């Protein structure tokens, strides 16, 4: 079985995000970029499927700027077999919308014919939570989002999903798209020897135009602003004062 894992290069989750003064977006110049944390979980799950003998090949795919190569090298160092970069943007500030990403991924999937796609539930930059579902729609495949447990058996997968009320388990026909949630696994760190080995693994490069996909955005960004800042209040000395303050505000 072949598993395809789309991985996105995003601002590192520890970086303090700054909105550009002209309101045009978020400043990404000279900030640390990393693999989207959910995608690390997806890569980890794919590698575990390979280690368990369920999968025989893991292919990582990224769509974006040239530097997304680094993200793909990370996936390769974790254990992916090969990688495909689709260059679709000249600048990190030019993000590709989930619909366009899904269209490109569909074209890649038509060529690669994987049985399973493991994507992140959301990218922590734009928080759209959309790409996997859109891809699944374009392919006419089944989808299982927000997975906290995945079991592949022959022609189906049983997936436990984190939903508002608790957990839901569904059985999906393969091929399927599964988007992964935080508690599916704990991703490994790449070891130094594996980082070295990853440099020799195949990394193909294409462009969005190679697949004939129009990546021009449907959503025009009118402006990007800082949210209203919340002021720090006061430190109260003891529980009695806290109770008195809350009573004063009428909330208890």
């Amino acid at each position, binding site marked *: 079985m072949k598993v395809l894992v789309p991985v996105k290069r995003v*601002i590192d989750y520890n970086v*303090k*995000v700054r*909105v550009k003064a002209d309101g045009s977006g*978020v400043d990404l110049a000279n900030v640390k970029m990393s693999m989207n944390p959910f995608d690390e979980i997806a890569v980890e799950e794919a590698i575990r499927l390979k280690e368990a003998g369920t999968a025989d090949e893991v292919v990582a795919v990224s769509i974006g700027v040239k530097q997304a190569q680094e993200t793909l090298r990370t996936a390769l160092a974790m254990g992916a077999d090969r990688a495909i970069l689709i260059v679709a943007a000249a600048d990190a500030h030019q993000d590709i919308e*989930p619909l366009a990403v*899904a269209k490109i991924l569909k074209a890649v999937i038509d060529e690669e014919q994987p049985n399973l796609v493991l994507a992140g539930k959301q990218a*922590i*930059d*734009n*928080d*759209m*939570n*959309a790409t*996997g*579902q*859109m*891809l*699944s*729609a*374009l392919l006419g495949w*089944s989808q*299982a*989002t927000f997975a*906290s447990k995945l079991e592949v058996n022959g022609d189906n997968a*049983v997936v436990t999903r984190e*939903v*508002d*009320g*608790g*957990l*839901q*388990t*569904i059985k999906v*026909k393969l091929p*399927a798209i599964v988007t992964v*949630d*935080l*508690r599916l696994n704990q991703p490994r760190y790449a070891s130094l020897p594996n980082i070295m080995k990853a440099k020799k693994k195949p990394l193909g490069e294409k462009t969005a135009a190679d697949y004939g996909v129009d990546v021009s*955005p*449907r*959503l*025009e*960004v009118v*402006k*990007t*602003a*800082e*949210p209203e800042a*919340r002021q*720090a*209040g006061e*430190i*109260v000395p*003891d*529980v*009695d004062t*806290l109770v008195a*303050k*809350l009573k004063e505000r009428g909330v208890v």
Partner: protein
Amino acid sequence: MAVLLLGEVNDGELALDPTAKAVNAAKALGEVTVLCAGASAAAAGAAAAKIEGVAKVLVAEHPALSHRLAEPTAAMIVSLAGDYSHIMAPATSDAKNVMPRVAALLDVMVISDVSGVVDADTFERPIYAGNAIQTVRSKDAKKVVTLRTSAFKAAGKGGPAKVETVDVPGDPGLSEWVEDKVAESDRPELTSAGVVVSGGRGVGSQGDFALIEKLADKLGAAVGASRAAVDAGFAPNDWQVGQTGKVVAPELYVAVGISGAIQHLAGMKDSKIIVAINKDPDAPIFQIADYGLVADLFQAVPELIEKL
């Protein structure tokens, strides 16, 4: 302009709070038709008809629509899409599952987790864990939108609007439901509760999380948790508040043993009053708390329970 709004239906019942909030956000854009879909949805439809601002309710009943599986639900919505300029839903986990699929089937972009409706084409949404608010204008002919319920007030009572049943395209047969594990609770629902008490890694164990629950019950509150507390198994996944969990904006939010990571703040910083109890005076949570108490939670929380 006309809006088709997917009502939140769980096991045949309407979740009134998220649906009424979404109706309120949508009604400025045009006549609102609420779709209630499920294996049984008539009762939900009748409830939706009594929300102020609802012009019409469509009830779609079919076994394939039970448990809100994405593929049949998306196909259902797409079959109705022709008549509407906007297709909207409260941003629940069900809608987040279904609506991007709907959008892709219609070849339009989904606009997720909208916190403000500017006009028919223009919407505000938080990005980067709420560190920035982006205003986007959609160029698509149809807008597919999920609405962050904590950002809108619920519409009141009205109607009743007329209720019609609609045909269901059927089951594409791609996936099937196996089971739900839903914890029954007498506590208010997390995203609509007036008071939320959340515990973090500082609580230390699943056993000690009972202390958080006791404080919550004293306040008639819902219980929340940080990701660290959920990951450690102190609390179930559906209690997680944050960027990748639930977004809440209660009158009172009490954070106990939570440091205040940006991903946690993303889910609660719009609460009206925030109280933080943490033994570390430098914990970032104090920078956004209205009232901070620097104390060991194992002393402060029992005392608080006693004095409230």
